């Protein structure tokens, strides 16, 4: 009697903690029925992962600000800025690791600025990162004089196109980043501090956690992830485009929240964010396949996201 209750409880906990996967399964099921032959083709599924790699990697980084109770709206612009630098590096024929390094450094730098103002300057995260959103976009356009940067060598372009063991390289990078972020966020001391800060900053502080430093680092990690995403995006586009990435931050945040993280901080799981990214990807891919009118797509996308989270939160309170 008691045992079966415990089983039920545990099941409830699992459903609660991993509800993103239920939404994902529901969407996959719906698409399989409606458009099974083309949707379930392995190339299509691989495509979805590749398409979501950029947003997904940004989302992984944004988890740190969100879990610690902040937010980061600069992702979309920073991905453009880092992309521009990556493209300049590629055009200068620098080797791939150096291209990554440059994009990561630029991303980290934006994170340093965000983190400084937020953690040490008490500027609300929304404002600081909104300011960065504006500034990074302006900087990307200024540097490139509003033009694309072209002329890439082949090896670099292959990041965007080639596959390895059946999975595109972009997807591999996504998976790798997910594992790294999982380890940092859910397995290290630092990650626990981030959860603690999001849950109760005062408690974290009196437990001897350096709240400011941890928050600061969170924005830097978000910047680094965006840098990685920028390289993937640049390789996929074969050019550095200063106006790319518009509103990516919204999609990234949506992934994190669809994955069940709370805006008030203190919760969120990496694997669920990955599911969140796939949910968004399948939604867009599915609507394209079903040939839904693009304006109607906006309506449907908005409605599906809200209703998914709605059903999810209902299930939780029950």
């Amino acid at each position, binding site marked *: 009697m008691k045992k079966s209750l415990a089983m039920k409880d545990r099941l409830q906990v699992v459903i609660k903690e991993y509800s993103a996967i239920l939404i994902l399964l529901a969407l996959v099921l719906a698409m399989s029925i409606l458009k099974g032959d083309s949707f379930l083709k392995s190339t299509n599924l691989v495509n979805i992962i590749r398409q979501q790699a950029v947003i997904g990697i940004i989302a992984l980084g944004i988890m740190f600000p969100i879990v610690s109770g902040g937010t980061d709206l600069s992702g979309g612009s920073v991905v453009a800025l880092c992309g521009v630098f990556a493209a300049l590096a590629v055009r200068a024929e620098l080797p791939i690791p150096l291209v990554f390094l440059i994009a990561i450094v630029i991303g980290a730098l934006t994170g340093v600025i965000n983190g400084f103002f937020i953690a040490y300057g008490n500027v609300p995260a929304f404002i600081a990162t909104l300011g960065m959103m504006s500034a990074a976009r302006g900087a990307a356009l200024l540097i490139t004089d509003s033009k694309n940067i072209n002329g890439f060598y082949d090896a670099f372009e292959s990041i965007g196109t080639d596959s390895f063991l059946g999975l595109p390289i972009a997807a591999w990078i996504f998976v790798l980043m997910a594992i790294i972020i999982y380890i940092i966020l859910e397995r290290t001391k630092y990650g626990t501090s981030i959860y603690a800060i999001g849950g109760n900053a005062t408690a974290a502080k009196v437990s001897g956690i350096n709240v400011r430093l941890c928050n600061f680092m969170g924005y830097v990690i978000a910047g680094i992830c965006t840098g990685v995403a920028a390289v993937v995006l640049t390789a996929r586009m074969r050019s550095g485009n200063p106006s790319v990435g518009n509103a990516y931050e919204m999609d990234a945040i949506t992934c994190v929240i669809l994955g069940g993280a709370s805006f008030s901080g203190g919760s969120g799981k990496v694997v669920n964010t990955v599911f969140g990214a796939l949910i968004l990807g399948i939604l867009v891919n599915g609507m394209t396949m079903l040939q839904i009118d*693009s304006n109607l797509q906006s309506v449907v996308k908005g409605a599906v996201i809200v209703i998914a989270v709605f059903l999810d939160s209902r299930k939780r309170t029950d």
Partner: protein
Amino acid sequence: SSDGASGNDASTDLPQDEAAEDKIVIGYTVNDLNDTWVSSVIDYVEQWADEHPDVEVIIGDGKSDVSTQMAVVEGWIEMGIDSVCLKPVDYEASLSILDSVKAAGINYVAMQQDAEDADCFVGANGVETGEAQMQAVIDAIGGSGKIAYLAGTEGTLVASEREEGSMSALEASPECELVAREDGDWLREDAISIVETWITSGIEFDAICAACDEMAIGAILALQDAGIDDVVVAGIDGLQMGCEYVKNGDMTLTFYADAKGLAYESLDAALALAKGGQPEDVVLKDLLVNRDNVDEYLALWS
């Protein structure tokens, strides 16, 4: 080998649902469906589709985002369609899309920007349009004077092409001076605020050259508010609204960007390719609209 992928061959290879319908499927994707001019292209696309009941045209919105446009076309490739017409969000990215489209044996019609591997090109040259527009403005103010420029959204292809053309025409006329330049984001409301501010800040100009009609109309509204009526205002698009402003004299001139041409020529090419033909490239001309010939263009809308 993929070059010759004809409609007949393809239809036998297609998955069942497409084959059963036995229709030629063309994917038509634009940079942003919500752009006023692009939406009128789409109207013509729909008109063309009505005239060709045996062809299915799917419209895909790039939403001004490269990844979105890539994802749309990748979805089509999975569906196994016959031809893709693509007006790119980003030129370089369109080359990567082109590669995957060709690799899947699908025909590719490039719109507005030519690409080497494309099966066919249909489009106008934005630089030329910009140049012609600025030249017409310079002529309208008698070869010398002060000109202000309202640019489209920074970083977009069309905006930079048109501005590039306009500026080269301006440089060729030493009598003319650029007194102000601002990014109006293609939007009427931004243009209103910008021109209001120009006026109050005491910038004087004989002409405002705007990269699209919406911004030109915004400029006109701000000028009217300030009681100024001797400024030459020029736009590009030549849609109904713009033509009406030309007709009643508020707008000096605009350029008719051939929406119908872009829709029809590209779809015709895509269809021909799907049937195994080898259509010629089409270069569309953007045509000057002024008071003298505006009725011709207004007639398009009645």
